[in-house]
């Protein structure tokens, strides 16, 4: 992995840890971004971690861009040696797959899709080699996902599936982006999953919907009172398929302030994961369910 540095105008430094996506690249970018944060370089105002890169915003009235570059490069060596261990949390997100709302939306924008004859789930199942939508949903909800970036719009998580590369779900984005996506749609584009935090335009394939708000500017949702954005880079997500009744119940629980997503603190070691992916995932799931 060669790190590439480039300035985004006179106020941003862009650091690309790898051209291609991998958990190793994500760990390197997160570790460097944290190193930069901890080093407290004067004039640095914001640090934004992304999937395999990160971005620093600085005030060039306080520090010359070349000096930011020098200081960040000095951190790269230490970050490369840092242990790939992350203290984080795993959260279970209920998903109503094949729900009526994303279905209505995908039918409305069918002419913008690669395969207008079926649904997004039919298409994704077929091109990823699954015999049925049920098998595909089983794979989607069968392994955990890493939140490798939060952004695009407020609080939207990009998620990277924790399986071998050849098993990762991959789908193209819509041929032309939709102008509408239901709030809390669970989507997928390229190798990344996402949850649309707000209603709006979008190009990812739509698989289902979660009843669990992940962005609440009014901060009235019980678990979003401290901060309006739920996700942080490094969070681990496990999806749980639910049916219509369970979805309706969860929506009611959210409204009444008694919905509490299962969350557990976990320590994730990339080396253990690389040695035994399924075993590591099984342990994570065990922790989630209190075994």
């Amino acid at each position, binding site marked *: 992995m060669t790190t590439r540095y480039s300035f985004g105008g006179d106020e941003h430094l862009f650091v690309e840890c790898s051209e291609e996506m991998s958990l190793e690249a994500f760990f390197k970018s997160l570790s460097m971004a944290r190193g930069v944060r901890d080093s407290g370089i004067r004039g640095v105002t914001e640090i934004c971690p*992304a999937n395999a890169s*990160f971005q620093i915003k600085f005030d060039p009235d306080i520090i010359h861009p070349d000096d930011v570059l020098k200081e960040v490069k000095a951190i790269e060596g230490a970050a490369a040696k840092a242990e790939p261990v992350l203290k984080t949390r795993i959260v279970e997100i209920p998903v109503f797959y094949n729900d009526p709302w994303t279905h209505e939306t995908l039918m409305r924008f069918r002419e913008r899709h690669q395969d207008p004859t079926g649904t997004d789930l039919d298409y994704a199942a077929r091109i990823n080699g699954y015999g049925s939508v049920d098998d595909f949903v089983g794979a989607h909800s069968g392994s955990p996902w890493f939140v490798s970036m939060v952004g695009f719009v*407020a609080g939207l998580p990009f998620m990277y599936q924790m399986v071998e590369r050849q098993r990762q779900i991959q789908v193209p984005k819509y041929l032309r982006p939709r102008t509408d996506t239901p709030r809390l749609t669970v989507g997928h584009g390229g190798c990344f999953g996402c949850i649309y935090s707000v209603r709006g335009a979008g190009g990812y394939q739509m698989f289902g919907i979660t009843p669990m708000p992940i962005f609440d500017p009014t901060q009235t949702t019980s678990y979003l009172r401290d901060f309006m954005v739920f996700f942080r880079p490094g969070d681990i997500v496990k999806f749980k398929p639910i049916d219509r009744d369970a979805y309706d119940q969860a929506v009611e629980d959210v409204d009444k302030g008694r919905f509490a997503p299962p969350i557990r603190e976990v320590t994730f070691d990339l080396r253990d994961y690389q040695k035994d992916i399924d075993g590591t995932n099984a342990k994570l799931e065990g922790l989630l369910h209190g075994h």
Partner: protein
Amino acid sequence: MVIKVLHHGLATTVQDLGRPGYFHLGIPVGGAMDRYAMRAANLLVGNDEGAAGLEAVFIGPKLEFTEDALVAVTGADMPAKVDGVAQPGWTAFKVKAGQTLTFDFLKSGARICIAISGGIDVPEALGSRSTYPIGALGGFKGRPLAAGDELPVGTGRLASEGKSVPEAMQRKPGMPAELRVLPGLYWHRVTEQSQENFFADEWKVANEADRMGYRFKGGRKLDFVEREQPFGAGSDPSNIVDSCYPYGSIQVPGGTEPIILHRDAVSGGGYFMVGTVISADMDLIGQLQPHTPTRFVKVTMEEALAARGERRTALARLREALA
């Protein structure tokens, strides 16, 4: 006091100097597109530069005042009228209780900043009163103004009417507009010929131009250096593994129409970027109308920093002139 919104114009939002610190969660800085104009308007009416005002694009709102206030309108040339009587731009004027502020047609530029003594007194959200409509955050109920809204206004300091920004200190885009760009980010993804064409061609602002981004049309399509697409990037040669987007960065989906991200930018995505508009020229973009001919001018980092220094000096002079 409150100001009654009789008509909302086209898209009128409460804005200040923005909400830095949350881009890593996808919440953009926001705030006035033309920061210099918003600072000037506030200074004219005796407010702090960072007080919240209104930003209106293309069409002004119709506002009824319930108490006397001092008002200044800066930015685009869209003459203000008080009960039908024209008022000068970039100048503090008085609006009395019961009077109505309206606007004439837009003559040049795109966005006006309206400052009212005391500032718009909506609650702060994450440290700013700026409106982020996608996230329903900040501003007046998280959305652009609508007829029937009653806007709270703070108590102003004593400032005198008639104070004015000298003509030479009013900044407007040239014709054709010139935006200075520092090449970088994924600049190496396009061929040398396309790199030359990008700066040689005349572009025009497209209709899709708003607070999130400005799209441009009319230049030659960019050709990509061939490569096997990296895992996770997507199959189009203009795709990258989703990364952060700097403010002012220029992405070119499919290599055809450049989009400059602005104050309400999406924080990241999967399109490559050719470079970034320098900080000194960001204000100008907010004053470009659709179809404005525009050239991108290649600069070095040292030139970008020198231009930033000039803007800093200009702002210091403005403060001095209005002190």
